[in-house]
């Protein structure tokens, strides 16, 4: 009986490290995640699937929507969400698209985006604060019509997918600006109420992951 008990004890002592091994291996890895994030992947925007939608009130009545096609730039983000994303995204004013060529021309003209002098709109992030899982408040500089102001962008990772060219990551970001802050005043006071001051932006970004996490 004693021999039997001793044999079981030896077997248990031998088996214990083996059965606990996966748990022991997992434990330090998890704590490492919390302390030091895995390296961020560089995500190059896919212009075909990256766009910005803007919304502005027309004549104090309905909301008018337009979009900027073909956003370019990069983001960095560890795919395990262990650290904040960063963005450097550019919209080309020439790519504004309202569905009306005349209206596009008006928006590209000096009364609005002034494409001849300020051909691009740029956002560069500076910091971020976690709001939830894959959900961040990103602070950064928005440069529009030559004026740079700090804004806060609500940014959600919309998904991680796989395409023929490799891994893809999508973000959806939203923010609101007062266009008068950027010198785009036409239609606010003169002509009064033609177009609203508040512009809500929804930006959908999709990019190709250049470097795997880890």
């Amino acid at each position, binding site marked *: 009986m004693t021999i039997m008990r001793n044999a079981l004890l030896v077997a248990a002592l031998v088996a214990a490290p083996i059965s606990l091994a996966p748990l022991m291996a997992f434990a330090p890895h998890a704590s490492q995640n919390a302390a030091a994030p895995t390296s961020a992947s560089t995500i190059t925007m896919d212009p*075909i699937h990256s766009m910005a939608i803007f919304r502005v009130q027309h*004549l104090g009545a309905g909301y008018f929507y337009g979009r900027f*096609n*073909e956003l370019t730039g990069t983001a960095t983000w560890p795919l395990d969400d262990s650290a904040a994303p960063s963005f450097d995204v550019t919209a080309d004013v020439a790519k504004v698209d309202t569905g*009306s*060529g*005349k209206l*596009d*021309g*008006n*928006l*590209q*003209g*000096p*009364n609005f985006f*002034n*494409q*001849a*002098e*300020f051909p691009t709109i740029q956002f560069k992030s500076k910091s971020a604060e976690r709001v939830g899982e894959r959900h961040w408040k990103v602070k950064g500089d928005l440069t529009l*019509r*030559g*004026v740079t102001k700090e804004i806060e962008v609500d940014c959600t990772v919309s998904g991680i997918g796989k395409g023929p060219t490799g891994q893809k990551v999508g973000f959806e970001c939203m923010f609101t600006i007062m266009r008068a802050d*950027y*010198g785009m005043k*036409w239609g606010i006071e*003169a*002509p*009064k*109420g*033609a177009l609203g001051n508040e512009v809500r932006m929804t930006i959908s970004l999709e990019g190709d992951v250049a470097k795997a996490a880890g």
Partner: protein
Amino acid sequence: MDGVVGYLVSVVVIPALVAAVVASIALVTPLRRRAWAVECFPAMAVALAFLVSFTNELGWTAVARQVVTIEGDDAPFERWHRLGLAALVLVVLSMVVAAARSAAPKGDARIVSIASLAVASGLAGVFVPFPQPTLLKQLGLAALVLAAGVALPLAGGAIYWIAWGAFGIVAALAGLGGFASLAVMCGAVSVASLLVAILAALGGKFAKDAKPIEATGAPLVVCAVMIALAARCGDAYDQSQTPDWLWWLVPLVPGFALIFTKQALRAPSIAAATFWRTLGAALAGVAILGAALTIDASRGTGKSDADDPYADMYGG
């Protein structure tokens, strides 16, 4: 007041009325007998119309920003805002040129006119760069001012009638090109020129020893510089399909008064001569506008399914 109506009153009607009041100081008062006053006030009024329209829309800071740094002003520096400063300079210049011509010995007034135009042309070339300026473009702008200065004297006494049309064309082209602010500002100058022309005609009819309107000195400098700058500005920011050469033709419109020179010279009255000269320029203006509209319509917006880079994104 309705937003659009209020806007048009502020940027077109009020500037034109201010110009009319300033011009009337010389045109319908005893000052009509003074050549310097008849030269100075109407010319100043035309430049003032642009300046008042500009400041009513953008404020004085947009003019001041061109020359000084304003504390707390973080609005963007936009090159076309220099037109406001140019109008302010022209208001002053109209007085200086008229005074210089008045003070110059008889026979030298013409030299003062030519020298003033040359200086104004140089200043425009150096200090009014529009987007992507190059030496060639700035030389072109200076040359355009000179060309307008050569074309305008052909308008003779019809200078303000023709300015009405020429600024009207720039306003229409700017509107077509999506540049509402330039359209209304040139619209204000166009209406102001019309009011000045009417006041000049009325004053000339009823005042004894009235000095005639001449396309020389201050009116020549103001109209040549403003038409050339406005046309070049409209071209630089144009979002329509209007070709550059059409824009560059606008400052030369007054020269088309030449078409009916024979009829103007044989006309029995100043009014009839003015009509013939204006008709020649008006025909050129209508041709320019017609060409711009036709080209814009034929080229379209460039938007069609064939141009759509996303047309095949779903494999279609």
